[in-house]
């Protein structure tokens, strides 16, 4: 089954065209790594899929589980099962993680036609999810991402991923700023959430996370286009030869 079908997607930020015609098809259960140097457009792709208002889509189409994704508000995309793990998770001072997570959980449940859960029942739901990121309940009484370390913020993203059970998860440089232990926990969490019905787009600059989350397909972005696609071996080749290799290959100025 096709989860996501991107055809010739173009997008601008201000006057600058950042995505210059991206086409990519992702089937249910697949993990696609999107790699590329800084400025290649890989984070923009993640943000555009989630509907960030700073970007304007100027061409192409995106179909998500048969629906026109670009026609949906960001919250509608979330409710339809698209999840973005943010590169820079946002702090919400004064709002406890427990309150925020339950609000999000109930929004998603409502969208699926399920009953909302009260705070007590939610604690039971959380208990299992916290195990996925090897966390205790104390994180729930802290304000959302406020004063969290870089690693804690990323773990919180994966906790939300576990809780909201999306159909498609886009991980935007989830490995950046993580030490090796945090990377192991975060990647371990993602692996536990892999399933035949769920797809992933793993956006990353480095190959190291792909040692933990082994992709089915690897795409290299340069200058707003996918310039090369392959299997996991491509990631290793990139690690060895650097991005200049693909950029030179396709005449993209470094």
């Amino acid at each position, binding site marked *: 089954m096709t989860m996501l079908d991107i055809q010739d997607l173009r997008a601008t930020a201000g006057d600058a065209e950042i995505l210059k015609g991206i086409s990519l098809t992702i089937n249910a259960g697949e993990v696609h790594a999107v790699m590329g140097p800084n400025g290649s457009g890989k984070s923009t792709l993640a943000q555009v899929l*989630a*509907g*960030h*208002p*700073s970007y304007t889509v100027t061409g192409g189409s995106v179909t998500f589980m048969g629906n026109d994704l670009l026609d949906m*508000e*960001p*919250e509608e*995309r*979330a*409710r339809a099962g698209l*999840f*973005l793990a*943010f590169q820079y*998770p*946002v702090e*919400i*001072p*004064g*709002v406890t993680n427990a*309150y*925020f997570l339950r*609000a*999000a959980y109930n*929004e*998603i449940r409502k*969208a699926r036609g399920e009953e909302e859960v009260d705070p007590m029942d939610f604690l039971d739901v959380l208990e299992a999810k916290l195990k996925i990121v090897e966390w205790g309940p104390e994180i729930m009484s802290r*304000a*959302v991402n406020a004063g969290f370390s870089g690693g804690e913020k990323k773990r919180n993203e994966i906790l*939300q991923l576990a809780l*909201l059970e999306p159909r498609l998860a886009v991980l935007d440089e989830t490995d950046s700023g993580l030490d090796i232990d945090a990377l192991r926990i975060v990647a371990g969490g993602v692996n536990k959430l892999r399933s035949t019905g769920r797809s992933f787009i793993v956006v990353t600059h480095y190959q190291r996370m792909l040692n933990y989350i082994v992709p089915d397909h690897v795409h290299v972005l340069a200058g707003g286009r996918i310039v090369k696609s392959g299997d996991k071996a491509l990631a290793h080749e990139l690690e060895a030869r650097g991005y200049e290799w693909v950029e030179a290959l396709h005449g993209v100025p470094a």
Partner: protein
Amino acid sequence: MSSSVESLVNREYKYGFVTDIESDLAPKGLNEDIVRLISAKKGEPEWLLDWRLQAYRNWTRMAEPHNWPNISYEPVNYQDLRYYAAPKTTTPLGSLDDVDPKLLETYTKLGIPLSEQKLLAGVAVDAIFDSVSVGTTYKAKLAEQGIIFCSFGEAVREHPELVRQYLGSVVPAGDNFFAALNAAVFSDGSFVYIPKGVKCPMELSTYFRINQAETGQFERTLIVADEGAGVSYLEGCTAPKRDANQLHAAVVELVALDDASIKYSTVQNWYAGDADGKGGILNFVTKRGKCAGTRSKISWTQVETGSAITWKYPSVILQGDDSVGEFYSVAVVNNRQQADTGTKMIHVGRNTRSTIVSKGISAGRGQNSYRGLVKVLPRAANARNYTQCDSMLIGNRCGAHTFPYIDVQNASSSTEHEASTSKIGEDQIFYLKQRGLNTENAISMIVNGFCKEVFKELPMEFAVEAQKLLGVSLEGSVG
């Protein structure tokens, strides 16, 4: 950002209706005869009339404040206002047994049922309609413990010695322009006396309603907590939508004797004017408490979302040793609203402590100023103050301003001031939308988080009300 939000900005102010009721009106204008008329209408004793007249004479020598507050408004034409408006009813007001059904209906529409069958559980209410008190609930039950809770007019008649002892003892008749005006023409308000050692078993509440056009509302509240007494008091307010500004110049005086505590909470939702700044209430209010006794405590909590212009500084005079003053405030301005609000903590006694937590939220073209004074007098050894003053901006056409004054005359005291300014970011809203929340709920969550330290000071039912109110006030503020 989202069109659904823009459509919500035009949501009607839901308390903007007018009650069609015939009123007993004073002629327009202000002079000594009007002062005498008001006093006569209320059957007041000579000493109170003299006090009013003295206040009126003081007032004529004072000037409306325009220079120092960070607000701009057309000078009020005091001769074009009415100073007394009372609904004409066939039965005397004050008893709830046979109140005009139109008045009962008004309060029911406002969510404040006054009829005995539907009383708010655990909250006693004094309902003020224009210049008079419509009635007070649970009066008899409170009287069993010696608690006096009644309209100001009734207190003057029934408890003149208490009123005379404390009236003007915290806010003197000549304190400032609006307080002097209020002293001259105040029409009604609430009076509370909690006797020695009694903790008031329920929340006391006043609900203010301005109905009549071209009428000012000048109510006066006096709360006295005797030694070891405690009370929590709530105040709510609404007014119909009208094109012209309406003046509200109230005075609230609190007196806490030894070991007494008073908690005063306000959710202010006067009509704020339209999106272009037309109409709305001019809310020029003097609120002050005196911690007269040792170990006494006075706490102000306010959530201010309404009014075209707010000029208000609920303050505490910390006179008794070891007394405590607190001020927790959320002030929201949207559209063309202006607010100049804050507090004064005057440390007189030893070991006195004060806490100020101010949260200002500015949206639309609103201008929000925090103005605070922390004064430590020479005798106030070991006085301590902590001030936290946070501003949040929504959009880029609004303003947040802070004017903190600190005047310390005792070297053993300590004062702390923390301030921050933040902007609700598109990124914060997007993050929450990506988790399934719509824009309205996202803003509400962010703003409620910002105000959390203040909301937790409110009584439970009020906190829920305040959160809802904040959501409504800010709808459409992110464009």
